[in-house]
């Protein structure tokens, strides 16, 4: 039976927060709470530190929150699950906190596999098991997904050792051409870091790697999936069966990084 919309939203938000929380914890950085807002402090490369969440008094809290961001007590990024919250946006802007992106919170319950054939006969899907393979996986991430930032291999090696994080790839002629990371917690699996080499985009490789990874998880009894997509990825994820349940606004206090 499908879960209520409220449950879907809270699961989509919770997986996102726990994903970053566990990464921060594994990287040895502490997390905390301020007035009902969770925050993670992450100094390990590719992921920024951020505040996640909202309270009824967000607007009232803005002077205090912005002051703490300026002092470096709270992170300068804020991910809020709030659709078209114009009052917050307007007030936040007056404190120098600006909306810089939006992610669609997507949700899917599925208990049968896709069994999609590879879009190209030379493609091979596999799960990353060794640190050496993971380093090759990271190289593709470094050129296709997070250019300009450095991924710290030691942290990813720690993630690989944790059962919650699983790394998948598509290989062509022995080289990794597409990546995907899953994070499972409380029987909910989040899909992260989907990327495909530039020259192979538009050939449904991203769809295939996502469905193939989900097939493995479904065969192991996981049937709740969430992800957080930019506008560009929406069509692909809708075709896979995901539906939009919420919208995350990504805010940033400029000059604080």
């Amino acid at each position, binding site marked *: 039976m499908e879960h209520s919309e409220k449950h879907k939203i809270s699961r989509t938000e919770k997986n996102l927060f726990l994903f970053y929380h566990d990464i921060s914890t594994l990287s040895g950085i502490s997390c905390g709470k301020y007035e009902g807002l969770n925050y993670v402090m992450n100094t390990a490369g590719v992921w920024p530190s951020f505040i996640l969440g909202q309270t009824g008094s967000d607007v009232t809290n803005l002077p205090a929150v912005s002051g703490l961001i300026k002092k470096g007590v709270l992170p300068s990024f804020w991910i809020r699950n709030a659709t078209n919250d114009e009052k917050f946006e307007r007030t936040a802007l007056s404190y120098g906190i*600006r*909306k*810089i*992106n*939006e992610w669609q919170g997507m949700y899917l319950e599925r208990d049968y596999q896709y069994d999609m054939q590879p879009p190209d006969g030379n493609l091979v899907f596999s799960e990353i098991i060794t640190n050496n393979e993971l380093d090759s996986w990271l190289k593709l991430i470094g050129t296709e997904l997070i*250019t*300009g*930032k450095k991924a710290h291999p030691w942290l990813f090696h720690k993630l690989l050792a944790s059962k919650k994080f699983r790394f998948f790839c598509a290989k062509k002629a022995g080289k990794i051409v597409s990546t995907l990371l899953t994070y499972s917690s409380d029987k909910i699996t989040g899909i992260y870091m989907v990327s495909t080499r530039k020259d192979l985009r538009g050939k449904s490789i991203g769809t295939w790697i996502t469905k193939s990874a989900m097939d493995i998880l479904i065969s192991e009894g996981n049937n709740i999936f969430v992800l957080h997509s930019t*506008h560009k990825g929406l069509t692909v994820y809708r075709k896979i069966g995901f539906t939009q349940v919420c919208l995350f606004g990504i805010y*940033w206090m*400029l*000059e604080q*990084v």
Partner: protein
Amino acid sequence: MEHSYIISKVKKIFHSLFGEHNEFNEDTSSSDVHGWDSLKHVVFISKIEEEFGFRFSLDEMQETTTIGDICRIIDSKTTL
């Protein structure tokens, strides 16, 4: 507002953020310039907003990837 005036102002901001060594023309895109990542893009746009006295919408901010894109938006916002 004269297009050449817009270009000269944007060029000044561009060089102050990314360095004088980077080539500047209307085809210059974020992928050509080291350090022009998504966050620097927000800073770049914010400085342009301060200079010209208007705001880019979220869509405009995300859709602009070249100097030409940015100048076209400034043109459209400052020409009445």
